[in-house]
């Protein structure tokens, strides 16, 4: 028995040692501390609960930075929670319900599922707690529960990517004699953000190409293909847009899907519509080495969101550019809106901008703060 | 006795390395109790497993109710009316008696199970058997004897025409056996054919009409019970193998040193204040009834189970044994009564099992010298006359006797001077039994000290130099072989009861 106890202690010490040794640094504890410090609710200020899509991604950490900045500025306290993964829908609903039970002055929510949170929003309404959505809207929310939504117009963001890509490849398409191919890798076909972005890109690209008198066919994942109006015929089209969706949301499978498209002789450009799929494109390129600045030299790559890897790729020209949303702004706006509600002011929806960035404008003041690592 | 209901003719069955059944015949008539006899490993159970479809026969014919049949599983056999009452009870302890009897064919009311009807039907069965068991009782709360009755009730409820009893009396008390016999006679009156497998000669004389004897997987002959004597049957069972005479005197050399001394050993309820001495070159028999605490004593001494208190001296030195590792270090080896569970690693080869306890001797640092391992294994296969195609053969394919020899080889490899044999010949056929006995005597003559736990009185009287008798976890006596008789051992073995 003694031995067993000893073993437990040993195991415990090791874990503790690890934490102390490696985790004792700066940023590691900061993010968890803020949640406990927030729950105190000091200084007569308001207390808000923030529920994000996932606590474990760089993107959301950037949004939380915005939330904290606003909280400091306005003298309110916030408590931030979120599930492990954007697919943990039930976990998030649970967290939202817990947040409501805390009876805060307001809740900022980035919902993983527009349907699953409806019931919780109703109880927030019943409890008289105002809710502000950010990143993602909840279109079917009970009347009066959601005061405002701070979100990127994802269709517009996709269109921004298409417009900027077309600037690079437009001439090549106009002069092409053989059919050419443009690839798009989307993380999934279920979330509104990703599919809005994906369709925004497809529709804009199709519009631009057709304006130049060429025909377009969209092929690949059925979900996306079905939403295309007046889809052309694959056999006769001048430009083929191929849409791929990996079996699971991993860089590896995104890279496999990207490799498949990038291996085709007629491919001139590829778009990864979020951080994981954009990194997939870059991972595939490690072996293929086909990404280039113009269609004459290789394949033109465009990414989405930021993170160290994508930023580096844009900076060194591997990707001609990428689109970033404004997670910091959104977090900030959400808290400001909640504050205004509590102060009795009117609030309204804000569609935050999506910015195109490339090697040249990365350092500019409007762009740089939104390029998180 | 009525007409023939079941005939098995020329049944042949081989397993890898073993010819289990060699053209065996058996005939059962309506209204008879037919004994199937033979030593352990003679092939009785295998024959019944072939009949009820658990094993597929290699050749031969089975004729049942005038038609040639082959059952593919026990379910088919049951449906046709051939049912086996197993030695190990296949009972689901948490369910009620009635639920057990009708498992797999529950009465339904809509989609609901009709427990009420099952209880009524079970009651009717018990009435027919003239026994009193509450169908609603939880199975695990019944005595072993009562559980056996339930098994029989289950068999009858299948509208059985042939019932096979596989050593039904093994775990029963005298009174329960009487009750069992009453039921069997009843069933015989009703015209069922009954196959009765048992070792107990006196039972055979009391209950059966005919006896079929098997030996080494072959058919020896069939006798009418009332026309034959006990010796006739034994002769058929044993064949030419003659038991060695019982020992009449202690063979341990005079003044032989004490190699193991155990003082006031306590371990749980089953080992209370046990003390004894073991001399070099001695075979010390441990006798007693089932559950007397002999195996528990051995396991505590070997470090397999924790001991509460007590002192152990090896060669005069006081030692602490907390695990089998410690015991092995002091040269103690343990051959378990349940070889398959505790003795061998069945899916590994003869060679790997042989070196299991002493890999260090075959290793250069962490690496195993497979050539040397093979040589040693082959040496012991030769010296113990283990029957195996090669030392690479998986142990699972060997017969019980040869598995036992592999376990012995394992401890000999380790140079153990103190060997504990727990039921050394359980599940081993007669010929091999004799070999194991010879081997044990030889080992003792070479100066090994042996503790032999055995439930067979003949084995105890034949092998031991001295005998320790246990009952209910306590040592109740110690005898020199010269003064030991069946009667005084039995006396000591039951001393604590009542």
């Amino acid at each position, binding site marked *: 028995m003694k031995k067993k106890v000893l073993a437990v202690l040993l195991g415990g010490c090791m874990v503790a040692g690890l934490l102390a040794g490696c*985790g004792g640094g700066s940023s*590691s*504890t900061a993010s968890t501390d803020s949640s406990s410090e927030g729950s105190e609710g000091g200084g007569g200020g308001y207390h808000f609960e923030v529920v994000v899509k996932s606590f474990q991604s760089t993107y*959301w950490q950037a949004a939380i930075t915005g939330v904290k900045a606003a909280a400091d500025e306005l003298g309110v306290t916030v408590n931030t929670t979120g599930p492990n993964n954007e697919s943990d829908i039930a976990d998030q609903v649970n967290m939202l319900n817990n947040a409501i039970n805390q009876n805060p002055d307001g809740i900022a929510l980035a919902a993983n599922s527009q349907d699953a949170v409806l019931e919780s929003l109703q109880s927030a309404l019943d409890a008289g707690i105002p809710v502000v959505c950010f990143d993602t809207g909840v279109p079917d929310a009970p009347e009066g529960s959601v005061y405002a939504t701070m979100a990127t117009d994802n269709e517009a963001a996709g269109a921004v990517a298409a417009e900027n890509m077309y600037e690079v490849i437009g001439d090549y398409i106009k002069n092409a004699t053989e059919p050419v191919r443009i690839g798009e890798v989307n993380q999934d076909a279920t979330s509104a953000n990703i599919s809005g972005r994906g369709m925004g890109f497809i529709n804009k690209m199709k519009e631009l190409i057709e304006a130049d008198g060429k025909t377009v066919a969209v092929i690949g994942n059925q979900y996306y293909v079905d939403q295309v109006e007046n889809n052309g015929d694959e056999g006769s089209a001048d430009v083929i847009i191929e849409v791929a969706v990996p079996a699971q949301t991993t860089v590896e499978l995104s890279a496999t899907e990207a490799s498949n498209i990038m*291996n085709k002789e007629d491919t001139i450009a590829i778009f990864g519509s979020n951080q994981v799929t954009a990194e997939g494109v870059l991972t595939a390129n490690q072996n293929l080495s086909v990404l280039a600045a113009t269609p004459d030299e290789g394949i033109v790559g465009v990414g989405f969101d930021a993170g160290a890897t994508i930023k580096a790729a844009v900076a060194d020209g591997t990707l001609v550019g990428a689109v970033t949303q404004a997670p910091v702004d959104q977090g900030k706006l959400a808290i400001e809106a909640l504050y205004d509600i509590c102060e009795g002011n009117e609030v309204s929806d804000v569609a935050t901008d999506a910015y195109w960035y490339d090697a040249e404008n990365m350092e500019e003041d409007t762009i740089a703060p939104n390029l998180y690592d | 006795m009525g007409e023939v209901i079941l005939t098995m003719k020329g049944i042949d069955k081989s397993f890898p*390395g073993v010819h289990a059944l060699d053209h065996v015949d058996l005939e059962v008539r309506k209204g008879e109790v037919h004994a199937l006899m033979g030593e352990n490993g003679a092939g009785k159970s295998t024959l019944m497993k072939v009949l009820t479809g658990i094993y597929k026969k290699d050749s031969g014919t089975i004729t049942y109710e005038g038609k040639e049949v082959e059952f593919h599983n026990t379910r088919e056999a049951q449906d046709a009316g051939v049912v086996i009452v197993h030695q190990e009870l296949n009972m689901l302890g948490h369910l009620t008696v009635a639920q057990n009897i009708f498992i797999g064919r529950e009465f339904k009311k809509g989609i609901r199970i009709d427990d009420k009807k099952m209880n009524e039907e079970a009651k009717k069965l018990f009435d027919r058997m003239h026994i009193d068991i509450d169908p609603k009782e939880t199975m695990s709360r019944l005595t072993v004897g009562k559980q056996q009755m339930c098994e029989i009730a289950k068999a009858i409820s299948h509208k059985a025409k042939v019932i096979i009893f596989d050593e039904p009396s093994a775990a029963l008390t005298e009174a329960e056996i009487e009750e069992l016999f009453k039921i069997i006679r009843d069933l015989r009156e009703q015209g069922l054919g009954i196959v009765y497998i048992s070792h107990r000669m006196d039972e055979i004389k009391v209950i059966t009409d005919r006896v079929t004897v098997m030996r080494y997987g072959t058919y020896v002959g069939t006798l009418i019970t009332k026309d034959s004597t006990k010796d006739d049957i034994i002769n058929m069972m044993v064949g030419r193998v003659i038991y060695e005479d019982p020992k009449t005197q202690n063979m341990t050399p005079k003044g032989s040193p004490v190699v193991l001394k155990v003082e006031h050993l306590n371990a749980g309820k089953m080992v209370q204040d046990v003390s004894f001495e073991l001399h070099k070159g001695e075979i010390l028999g441990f006798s007693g009834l089932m559950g007397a605490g002999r195996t528990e004593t051995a396991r505590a001494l070997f470090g397999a189970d924790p001991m509460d208190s007590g002192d152990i001296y090896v060669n005069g030195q006081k030692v602490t044994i907390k695990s089998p590792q410690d015991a092995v270090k002091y040269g103690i080896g343990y051959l378990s009564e349940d070889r398959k569970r505790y003795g061998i690693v069945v899916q590994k080869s003869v060679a790997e099992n042989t070196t299991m306890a002493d890999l260090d001797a075959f290793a250069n640092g962490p*690496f*195993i010298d497979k050539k040397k391992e093979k040589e040693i294994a082959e040496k012991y296969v030769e010296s113990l006359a283990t029957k195996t195609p090669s030392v690479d053969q998986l142990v699972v394919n060997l017969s019980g006797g040869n598995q036992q020899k592999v376990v012995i080889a394992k401890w000999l490899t380790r140079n153990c001077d103190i060997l504990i044999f727990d039921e050394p010949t359980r599940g081993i056929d007669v010929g091999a039994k004799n070999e194991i006995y010879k081997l044990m005597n030889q080992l003792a003559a070479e100066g090994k000290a042996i503790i032999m736990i055995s439930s067979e009185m003949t084995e105890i009287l034949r092998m031991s130099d001295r005998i320790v008798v246990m009952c209910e976890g306590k040592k109740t006596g110690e005898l020199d072989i010269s003064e030991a008789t069946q009667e005084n051992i039995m006396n000591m073995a039951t001393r604590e009861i009542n």
Partner: protein
Amino acid sequence: MANKTVSKTAGTNNRSFIDRMGGQKFIVILIVIALFILFCAMSPQFRKYTTVVSILDYSYYIALMAIGVTFPLLTAGVDLSIGTGLICYSLIGGYLIVHHDWPTGAGILVTILIGVVFGVINGCLVALMDLPAFLATLCTCMITRGLGSIVVGGYGIPWPTATQPGGWFRNIFKIQMDGMNIPIGFLWIVLLVIIMSFVLNHTKVGRYTLAIGSNKEATRLSGVNVKFYHVFAYVICGFFTGLAAIAYSAIFPTVQPGSGAGFELDAIGGAIIGGVSMTGGVGSITGTFAGVFVICLLKTGLPFIGLTANWQQIITGLVLIASVLIDILNRKKEGK
């Protein structure tokens, strides 16, 4: 011993051709070859050298995890913490390199060391405290998942790229020669397979791992220190998960916290396809290695022949069922 020689020949004759070629391993290797030919025939994109390099790239971390997890599987246990563990160890090691300017070598050592530590923890829980392996490693799975994220504060960790200072470790698995990528990582994996096969078949560690899986109690009663060797099986697994973490960090640009769940299924699936029995005691490293390639080929090949996400998962599931069935049927045959 006349009957010894007689039956010797009989003993070898009744083994089938497949058994003599190595049993299920042989079938699996045939499957790998067949799949490769099939995908090559169906997709011109698949036939390229770069695709082969990609398949190898993505196989390293799965292969390393699979070699490791084979040991707990052989003791009739399992280690479910390897997937999230891999990410956790890589995050911590990478965090020290990226944010604390540790030399890459030190970061790599720490990564592997934490793997070993969690191997010890798993081993102690299972072998000393008798927790069911499934439960114990499920718990450490959750712990590693949370721990990694806490240390990095939710941010992804980009290990140094090949061109950055400290990026030399990426060349362990892939070097550039005349503009071509040479997947030398494959060599290391093959070398490790050979070493671990030797460990499994020719050392005490391997012998006792198999013996514990076959019959733990009989092994204990033979005087073997089963606790030590049982723990050791998990330590080997932890060590290889640490190596897998390095391979993963070297191949992929960023390590994301919160990911990793599900990796273990690829590794365990590969081992089982390769003939490792879930009930312990039976299996080989070479089989596991071949099994991993079935998984990797399916993962890479199915998208290339135009199958969409859902079909890929269905087919992978069917292949797993088929290989487990082969194992069960084989065992039944032996049992009779």
